[in-house]
């Protein structure tokens, strides 16, 4: 099967295989991406993040249904952590979206973090592009937590939504800084639980103190995803944000920045692997390592010399 040709024709298996090539870093992934790239740039990318148990998948499910009702096609990338001990993962986000599985306008893909967080943001961005080229109108990228890795992942998004729930206690304190940095819109899920209003007040206070650099103030929406309450309002918030960034040139800026990052990512990983390969093949790698270990030289000198040799 010609993956690119079939993908562009709308073959779902081809899309699936393309994402596998990206995930597994197969050699053909680069070729696939080259050919898909001209067909990208149409989809709206929504990042969804928040602590475990916040109900992100249920919310994604409901938002996706709402977009489907508008006639839009949806791609979903759901990322779960890989166990650092066994290398295995249980990817359980789909269970919340089983109802979408047989809707031909929806494509859901679960991904494990697989240890390499840096690589993950790059792979996620490529998987998004594959779905974009496939013709998805809206692509959700859902990740757990709000650590640095997630911040990198959501850089692939046009709009980032942070989902919180009441009753998280001190957890919220710990993640406040990260939240403020990345949230374009906030959603307080399970708003029928005790403490929802308190959480909204806290969030507002944090936003007040933050002294926002832009004139976009992230809206805070209370939602009960399991009962479909607040979904319409959430979509309005997302759309308002998208309109705002479109009209103020921020979207262009973000996408330019993203293009630059993409190029740099590809550049770094390719140059890195090119040089590593050469070093290993020539046997110099072991030689240098031995010398460094014996303090005959140092990593900095080695790299300067390697660069001089290989990149003239």
């Amino acid at each position, binding site marked *: 099967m010609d993956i690119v040709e079939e993908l562009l024709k709308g073959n779902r298996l081809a899309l699936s295989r393309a994402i596998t090539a990206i995930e597994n870093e197969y050699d053909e992934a680069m070729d696939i991406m080259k050919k898909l790239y001209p067909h990208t740039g149409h989809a709206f990318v929504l990042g969804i993040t928040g602590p475990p148990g916040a109900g992100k998948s249920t919310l994604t499910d409901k938002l996706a249904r709402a977009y489907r009702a508008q006639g839009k096609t949806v791609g979903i990338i759901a990322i779960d952590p890989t166990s650092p001990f*066994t290398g295995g993962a249980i990817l359980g986000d789909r269970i919340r979206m089983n109802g979408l599985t*047989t809707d031909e306008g929806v494509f859901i893909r*679960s991904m494990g973090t*697989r240890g390499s967080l840096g690589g993950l943001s790059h792979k996620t961005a490529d998987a998004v592009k594959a779905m974009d080229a496939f013709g998805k109108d809206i692509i959700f990228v859902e990740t757990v937590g709000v650590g640095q890795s997630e911040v990198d992942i959501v850089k692939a998004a046009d709009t980032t939504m942070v989902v919180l729930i009441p009753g998280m206690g001190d957890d919220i304190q710990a993640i406040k800084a990260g939240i403020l940095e990345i949230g374009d819109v906030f959603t307080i899920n399970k708003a029928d639980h005790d403490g929802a209003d308190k959480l909204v007040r806290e969030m507002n206070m944090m936003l007040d103190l933050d002294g926002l650099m832009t004139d976009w103030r992230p809206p805070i929406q209370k939602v009960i995803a399991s009962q479909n309450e607040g979904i319409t309002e959430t979509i309005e918030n997302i759309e308002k944000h998208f309109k705002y960034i479109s009209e103020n040139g921020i979207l262009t800026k973000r996408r330019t920045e993203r293009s630059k990052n993409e190029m740099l990512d590809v550049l770094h990983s390719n140059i890195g692997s090119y040089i590593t390969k050469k070093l290993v093949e020539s046997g110099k790698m072991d030689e240098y390592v031995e010398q460094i270990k014996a303090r005959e030289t140092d990593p900095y000198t080695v790299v300067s010399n390697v660069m001089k040799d290989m990149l003239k």
Partner: protein
Amino acid sequence: MAKVRVLVAKPGLDGHDRGAKVVARALRDAGFEVIYTGLRQTPEQIAEAALQEDVNVVAMSILSGAHPHLFPKVVNLIREKGMDDVLIIGGGVIPETDIPALKEAGIAEVFTPGTPTGDIVEFIKANVK
């Protein structure tokens, strides 16, 4: 860096997921990526999830006796989608006498009660494409 991806699903209506969950955890601990889809999955849902997730293995569990009907149906739908190399295995309360027909229908192996999870892991490692 390729990883074995396994879809663990419960087709049909029975709610006994102790076995499916234990197997899912054991497969994770063996280093596989396990996509767990939970209860009451129709054959169509399982086949489509297998396609979207591009899994190497589909592992199903049924305790209700609906396996003669549901297992072959899943196999057919997956093959129809052009996924010829997916390893499809089943488990649950399945009488020995039903197993030949299930294998004939394309179920690579059937694991009955008392099977150590290690056997399932080994079978997958030996047979996954």
